[in-house]
């Protein structure tokens, strides 16, 4: 919720944003109409990944940056399909 306010303020001020958010909060986020959101199927408190899962972190961030660059209209979002996992060894 708090970052939704940041997104709206930044977009209003002319700075494009993308939010990376756990999908468990999607219901609270969509009503705030943020510009761009990448939802992950990750647990609360771990929106990017489990600790040290650099592969997943990179994938999520790349998807977010891709959305930042390609979105042409507000309320653009995607739910990434990958389930939460511990970092591969």
């Amino acid at each position, binding site marked *: 919720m708090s970052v939704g306010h940041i997104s709206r303020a930044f977009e209003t001020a002319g700075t494009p944003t993308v939010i990376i958010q756990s999908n468990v909060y999607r219901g609270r986020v969509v009503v705030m109409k943020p510009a761009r959101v990448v939802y992950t199927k990750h*647990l609360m408190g771990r929106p990017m990944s489990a600790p040290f899962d650099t592969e997943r972190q990179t994938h999520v961030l790349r998807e977010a940056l891709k959305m930042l660059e390609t979105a042409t209209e507000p309320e653009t979002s995607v739910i990434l399909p990958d389930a939460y996992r511990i970092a591969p060894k």
Partner: protein
Amino acid sequence: MPGETFKEYVDSFSYGSRTDLFFKWLKGAAEADAEDYIQSLLQELGEVSDTGDLSKFFEMTYEAQLAANSPPGEDPRWKYEDAPFTPLSKPLSEMRVGLITSSGHYVEGEPHAPPELSDYTQEEGTKHIGEYGRAKPFLSAVPIDLPQEKLGVHQPGYDIRAAQKDRNTVMPIDRMKEMADQGVIGEFASMAYSFIGLTSQMRLTREDAPQWAERVKDEGWEAAVLVPV
């Protein structure tokens, strides 16, 4: 505890006698869902004891968290009709991109909370969440070259254990630096920001968020990655 109902038991994980922020969402779950989750959790632990495979535990916990955070109806306070949107003005590979998270990271040795909350440890903070909800938003500047061991985390709104182990779970500084090194973004802004997301939402939306928007523009940010916890 004697005489305690099941509802009182699961509610106690959310800022109660059994505070455990990993499971605080149980308070928002329907009672039948909470019953099913705990029974399934115990069954799964039996399986994990033999297989070591945690994937089912992650899946059932994710689904239960999703259901608990999806109550019928909407919060009318933060429902908006308009949708502000700024398109990119040039390729991302030519832009300075910044990072903000609500993780509560701060630089060790610097204040970790607003003055009126600065005496609280993380654990003590969980006993005073109402004060956080009324407090002025607290923003920490984090130099992107700061090593992980120089970072602290203070945010009683969520289970910070993953963030303590690896900042990139909620504040992907190291991954952003790699994106800059690879030319995906033109530059990673030298100062990232983290704030305590458990804060006065009214003050945040009316006062601080617009000020922060101007602050990062002054620092040359042309786009921002935002990560709520």
